[in-house]
């Protein structure tokens, strides 16, 4: 249902009057004189971008490891153990299965007493309760920005926002195919969707490492409101 718009006409006509033109409701897209963004990491191969990403992670307090589908299950298990196991929340996402994680998640973890909760759109309150008490949240990056070390997450009914915010530890799976040079490419991808009339996710997160603050004497503190620790796992054959 469309929302209301109040007081618009008067407000905008005042602006137009100050600018010395009649109120506009049409405008052609401008062409910019400067375009410095395409020069950054121009022509870099995927392998080179992976190295840029790995290098950037040392500046954003984030662990990063590279693996492939065959070894992903073991690699993930090690990170989960390292974070103290206990409880994990994930999106409801078929990709976990296609990455060969089913047996880890549904057999190994219960045996090791690690509780798994999968986001369930039919249980709004339980989702938040579980996300709040989970030790680890696991998500998947849709677009990954090498330059800044950023994972881009799109929310949906099966991919709750809270999975990446509330648990103390965050693990983000990064299919190598999602790696692009920088935010420019992600912004273009999203803009193009909008121009094609597609609906974009109500929440798009550009996440770069764990939550942090330097508000006290400019001394960096890791882990303020969101995750305290973060690990990226690059899946090289995806």
């Amino acid at each position, binding site marked *: *249902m*469309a*929302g209301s*718009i*109040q*007081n*618009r006409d*008067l*407000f905008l006509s*005042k*602006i*137009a009057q100050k*600018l*010395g033109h009649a*109120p*506009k409701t*049409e405008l052609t897209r*401008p062409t*910019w*004189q*400067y*375009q410095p*963004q395409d020069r*950054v990491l121009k022509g870099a191969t995927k392998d080179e971008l992976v190295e840029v990403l790995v290098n950037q992670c040392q500046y954003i307090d984030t662990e990063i490891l590279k693996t492939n589908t065959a070894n992903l299950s073991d690699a993930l298990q090690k990170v989960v153990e390292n974070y103290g196991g206990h409880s994990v929340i994930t999106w409801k996402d078929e990709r976990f299965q296609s990455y060969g994680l089913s047996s880890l998640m549904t057999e190994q973890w219960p045996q090791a007493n690690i509780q798994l909760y999968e986001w369930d759109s039919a249980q*709004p309150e339980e989702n*938040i309760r579980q996300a709040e008490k989970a030790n680890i949240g696991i998500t998947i990056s849709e677009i990954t920005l090498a330059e800044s*070390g950023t994972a881009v997450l799109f*929310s*949906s*009914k099966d991919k*709750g*926002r*809270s999975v990446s*915010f509330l648990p103390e530890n965050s693990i983000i799976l990064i299919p190598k195919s999602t790696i692009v040079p920088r*935010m420019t490419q992600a*912004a273009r991808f*999203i803009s193009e969707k*909008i121009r094609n009339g597609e609906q*974009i996710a*109500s*929440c*798009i*997160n*550009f*996440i*770069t490492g764990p*939550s*942090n*603050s*330097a*508000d*006290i*004497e*400019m*001394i960096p*503190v890791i882990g*303020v*409101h*969101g*995750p305290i620790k973060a690990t990226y796992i690059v899946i090289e054959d995806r």
Partner: protein
Amino acid sequence: MSMKTSDEDFQHRLTKELENTFMRGAVSSAQERFQTRRLKQAEELGHWEEWRSHGEEIRKHVLANLDYYLYQLSENVSKRGGHVYFAQTAKEATDYIQRIAKKKNATKIVKSKSMVTEEINLNAALQQLGCEVIETDLGEYILQVDDHEPPSHIVVPALHKNKEQIRDVFKEKQGYEKTEKPEELALYVREKLRNEYLTADIGITGCNFAIAESGSITLVTNEGNADLVTALPKTQITVMGMERIVPTFEEMEVLVGLLTRSAVGQKLTSYITTLTGIRDEGDTDGPEEFHLVIVDNGRSDILGSEFQPILQCIRCAACVNVCPVYRHIGGHTYGSIYSGPVGIILSPLLGGYDDFKELPYASTLCGACTDACPVKIPLHQLILRHRQVIVENEGKAPISEKLLMKAFGLGASSPTLYKMATKMASPAMYPFTKDHKISNGPGPLKAWTEARDFPAPNKDRFRDWFKHHEKGGEE
């Protein structure tokens, strides 16, 4: 808190702040760190001037077509189920938000950092209704607990406080029992606020950039607090200054990169979030109801005037971080929520010359701010223009510039400081000195000495020389 943060006059504020030695030390070391990081990021990115020009052309284009972009934004917010309210004045904005709070029977409201909500004095309006309003940005939370102390920096609001003072504030007001270690203080706030997010009725945010093509708002934080403020409460209210808008995601990306580099010297901050309308069907977090309040509050009077370029501002505070006067007097002396060069220009425009007529004189017009600005606002020229307007209106300057410079400790005005500085200058410059000339100076001398030699401070300092010669060499 409104624009104006103090009832004391400028000179009293100045005298008080100059005595605050912790603040002065904190500010100068913060300035240095901010500058080093910003310059490093600009260099690493490359073609920085071109980036600045691109930032400038985007901001100028948006301002020249602001009515169109706000029209497009409001259409798109509405399409995604959000309500848009255009508020000409601060009161219209706070009245509208009060009405929502009442309708929702709200008792608890969580907020992420927003300068415009400070500007319209929103917290007071909500507290009037009996709502508890909780700031969630760590710095702002500290100030709020300390009896709503005003911020002293746009990006780091509690910059003027040291960790011992912060520990004592929590101890006195909330019975905090741990140490002054920043990690312990932050962990304490994390635990304290976690439950507030989960039980709040409304989440309120500011807006770094609205995106016209999609009706999205962009929030930039390192703490992730804005994400919790918008993901957990059922109602979200976002308040934006009407100029904080870009055409598409592509321009948002450019400006966010300029903002994070210029503000904190990061390629991107930890959390950059674009939120579009209400939660999607089937979503179980995110707001069920979303209101976007677009605030004019004096901005349209700046449009079309010679001060229009100040509306290009993206609130990075790079100008604050390079300002030699801010370095000496700190944020509170400005008596406004907006401090530093941007505050000098914005405060009289939004809050009137009566309360802020001294501010344009709190500047050496050195132009460091203009050089640092990522969207090329001619800041020092606008400051000078303010002075001209004030003199045209009042017939004279409200304050002696010479006296101010003396109070700021700039120039050779303080005998003790001057003595110390020149005594130290000689040995400190020694490694760079060759034949009594400095040809490869450090820091600010570097640019100068790249082109020419700077005379080395004489061992036989002028004041000593003068003293010596005044007495006819009798010493």
